[in-house]
């Protein structure tokens, strides 16, 4: 019974933490404003949405999601090139991820 209680408490904590943590660690959603950032040089809204979806799915296969601000705009292309193979990113998908990251950085 005590073990069940431990699991129940842990479950409640998990739900509570998740509700607080969502806004803290999730990368920003794609909005029309974000798509306008840089006058569209980082791609359209559909491309940015695809980039974000790939970023939050593929990158966490191997490591937790890094903050977009943790690397410079010059460093990101090289980093994504290095990891594209492991993340199974095709060239267009690689471009979408990079476009999203650079758009967020520019914002």
């Amino acid at each position: 019974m005590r073990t069940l209680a431990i699991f129940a408490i842990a479950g409640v904590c998990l739900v509570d933490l998740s509700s607080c943590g969502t806004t803290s660690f999730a990368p920003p959603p794609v909005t029309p404003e974000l798509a306008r950032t840089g006058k569209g040089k980082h791609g359209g809204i559909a491309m940015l949405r695809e980039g974000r979806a790939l970023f939050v799915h593929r990158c966490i296969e191997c490591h937790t999601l890094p903050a977009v601000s943790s690397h410079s705009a010059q460093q990101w292309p090289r980093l994504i090139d290095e990891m594209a193979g492991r993340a199974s990113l095709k060239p267009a998908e690689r471009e979408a991820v990079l476009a999203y990251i650079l758009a967020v950085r520019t914002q």
Partner: protein
Amino acid sequence: MEPDTSRSGGFLAAGAIRRAPFLVFIFLLSILPAISVFGGVRRFTFLYEANTSARGSLELENWVTWQRATGSDRFDQVDFRHELEYGVTDKFQVSIYLADWFYESDPEHSGFVYSDSAIELIYNLTNPVVDPIGLSIYGELRAGDRLIELESKLIAQKNFGPLILAYNATLEAVWEGSDLAEREGEFSQALGASYELSPRISVGIELLHEFVFPEWRDEEAIRNLFVGPNVSYRHRNWFVTVTALAQATDTDSEPDFQVRTIFGVGL
């Protein structure tokens, strides 16, 4: 899912291992040139994480689990599993357990035993980073000479920056024995936390709580609780994760401790 820990699989000579898993293995080898990327790292060995493999990725995972019991039912057992994991889509992955087998040693006998092969399906519903909670559903069918098992699982996960919390609720139905006449049900839940010290190394803790129902009855009130640390290391297209669990309850027929290692490599 979990290699069979009931120590009741069918004893077969090595040569009697079914051909089907090997034919599947040969088929998968033949399509390797078309699919050659990494499936994903595991930070836990007794829990599953909610995220599924990338579309088109293929990974080989080798599991080794050593269990030791020192009570009246003294035994040592080493379980092996060879698993191929393939990402059908970004949200749906299929795994084939080519073979589950084990070596056991107890006062009465010792030897290698083939247990079963299996197919496992996981469908991801929500993402552990951007959604309030990441959820996946899991189904598995295992079949061997003297074993059939159905297993379903709900996988929950949440990522908080470098911290990953995961929870699994599992329901199993097992038919075993020479005529599959012995039935057993099991509900288990597992909880894990893993902290990423660097992009290559994570450390954490896992807790496994089992409710066993022989013949689908609860007269014996069998409850097992295991807890222990884990560590995971990854580099390029491979990873290795190790968990050591100690039994916190006092069930004689269950191991006092068990150590599981999973080595995965992208093909």
